[in-house]
């Protein structure tokens, strides 16, 4: 057991899979020589050599297309798209190619690859380098969508993603790279589609993802200490597969459901959870499902404005307190 940063967990997770399987290769912009713009892939070039860890031109379509062609014919590529906002430049592969080739070919083609991408706000980069776009991927049948919140989950879920025979979009949160956590020694392999209850509570269920997880935990602590409200906090960990047994099972115990998401308001992943809960947990619910989101705006660069936009622990506390006491 050792303390590891989320950033270093990325490199360890990639290394674990590359050591295990010589068919795992890694490509992206500035990932090899520079060790990644977030320094999350430092040391991989030295460890695995330029044949397996490759810098590419600034050509996002070529990166994802090449990953797909390699995956279809026997490799297990890991492709990095530096900022998740850039998925928009190569969205054809995300929306039309990766997720449809297996179905359209009646099962002939397979696309076992992982796209790693830096997601989310907090770096004061402005509207084109700060978005949280896991909901873009969630809406497409045929993809799997993962977003870890802790170093140990980075390694375990990444291993599961690489070993999965489907295309997986793996969202790393930029504002979590410096976060630290305990990580056991040795190989770590987790399971996609398994949400985790990080804190038990009887009064309400709060579902979170990625950067919103530590904020949800912080809010739950405040609600407990200062207001005597006990919140059950669930880290979804993957949006597809979606672990609804854990979410709806919790709602059956608590009777209230809150989601906290970094996506802008319309069509964020919380909307889908709320819709499913309305369908399937209606009689368990003692009040409306409440979504806590970023407002439906492009993200500003200024630190005070960006902080205002994102759901914060105090905002979560305030919202839950008013809803439960209302």
């Amino acid at each position: 057991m050792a303390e590891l940063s989320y950033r270093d967990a990325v490199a360890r997770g990639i290394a674990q899979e590359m050591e295990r399987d010589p068919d795992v290769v890694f490509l992206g912009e500035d990932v090899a020589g520079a060790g990644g713009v977030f320094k999350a892939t430092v040391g991989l070039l030295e460890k695995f050599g330029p044949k397996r860890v490759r810098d590419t031109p600034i050509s996002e379509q070529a990166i994802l297309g090449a990953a797909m062609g390699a995956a279809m014919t026997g490799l297990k590529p890991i492709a990095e798209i530096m900022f998740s906002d850039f998925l928009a430049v190569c969205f054809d592969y995300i929306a039309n190619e990766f997720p449809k080739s297996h179905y359209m070919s009646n099962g002939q083609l397979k696309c076992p690859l992982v796209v790693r991408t830096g997601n989310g706000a907090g770096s004061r980069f402005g509207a084109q380098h700060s978005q949280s776009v896991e909901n873009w991927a969630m809406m497409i049948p045929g993809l799997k969508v993962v977003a870890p919140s802790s170093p140990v989950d980075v390694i375990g879920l990444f291993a599961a993603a690489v070993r999965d025979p489907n295309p997986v979009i793996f969202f790393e949160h930029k504002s979590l790279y410096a976060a630290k956590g305990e990580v056991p020694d040795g190989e770590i392999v987790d399971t996609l589609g398994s949400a985790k209850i990080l804190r038990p509570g009887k009064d309400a269920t709060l579902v979170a993802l990625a950067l919103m997880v530590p904020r949800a935990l912080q809010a739950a602590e405040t609600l407990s200490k200062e207001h005597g409200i006990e919140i059950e906090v669930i880290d979804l960990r993957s949006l597809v597969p979606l672990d609804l047994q854990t979410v709806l099972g919790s709602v059956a115990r608590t009777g209230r459901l809150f989601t906290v998401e970094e996506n802008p308001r319309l069509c964020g992943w919380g909307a889908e959870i709320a819709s499913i809960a309305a369908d399937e947990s209606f009689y368990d619910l003692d009040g409306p499902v409440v979504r806590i989101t970023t407002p439906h705006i492009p993200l500003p660069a200024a630190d005070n404005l960006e902080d205002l936009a994102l759901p914060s622990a105090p905002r979560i506390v305030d919202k839950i307190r008013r809803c439960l006491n209302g």
Partner: protein
Amino acid sequence: MQPLPADPRRNDALDEAKRLELYRLQVEIRDCEQRAYDLFLQGLVKGTSHLSLGQEAVAAGFAAAMEKGDLSFCTYRGHAHTLARGVPMEQVLGELMQRDNGLMRGKGGSMHLTSVEHGVMGSYAIIGAHLPIACGAAWRAQYKGQTDVSVCFFGDGTTNIGAFHEAVNFAAVWKLPVIFVCENNLYMEYTAIKDVIPAQIQHPAADRAASYGLERIVVDGNDADAVYRSALTAYAKARAGDGPSLIECMTYRYSGHSRADPAKYRPEGELEAWKARDPLKLYRQRLVEFGIGESAIKRIEDESKRKLDAATEACKAAPPPPESILTTDVYADGGWAWRN
């Protein structure tokens, strides 16, 4: 634009079997595409279809030069390349007719013909998407030390999309064993390609090759021998580890862009000028010049019609796909589950 002047070279070293194969492939593609059109008029081919009538020599020339294990990546105009790799007519027509005997049991349709068993690694209906994908397949060969070559066919219009430039640059930088084959049939959908490229450029693929350090190659795409020759050179280069080739084949499609297009935008006399250099007519004449008997030629033509009629009848008798396959193969476990 008129057809290229005839190349006096005729591949004198080719043996008779290879010559007959080149002719057979063209005849089978021509017959099958014409039948697809007829079936469309009868309301039996649904959705859309994009025919390669007039472009048969490109598919035949490249396929005849391939080795087993080489991979083809096609566009929505991919029937010809699929047939050229040996996929049975019944499976192709079955897919066009959206029957259960189709290549993908009706789940893909005309624009997505795929037969991994025959090296047809998909037909892609988003312009340019498959050029990077072919790079990836070639990267795998390079990485694993395998000698197969990935060949990517696309139209002249593709040369104006970003993925084309990303892929050709990527392949050149990584020295990948991939061949980019532009079938320049003079029209991007309904618009003449000359109207959407700079006036200084005559060949939208070949004239841009220098940007990526590649040789400028323009081939008479109506002459299967010329195509075959340039294909062999490119395969040898790729297998030797000397990187990609970009080849522009000048050809002409006799039908419209898709089934909805009557092709009224053609200047008068253009179609006739190209039909005078019809690839099948040209190649049949060449077989005669090389002393191949009329009976051997006729046998190929009759056999193609016989196979086509049998395939057509089989497709007409085939049921539609069962409803049970609607949700299969969304994920690699065979199912579509996104939740527990």
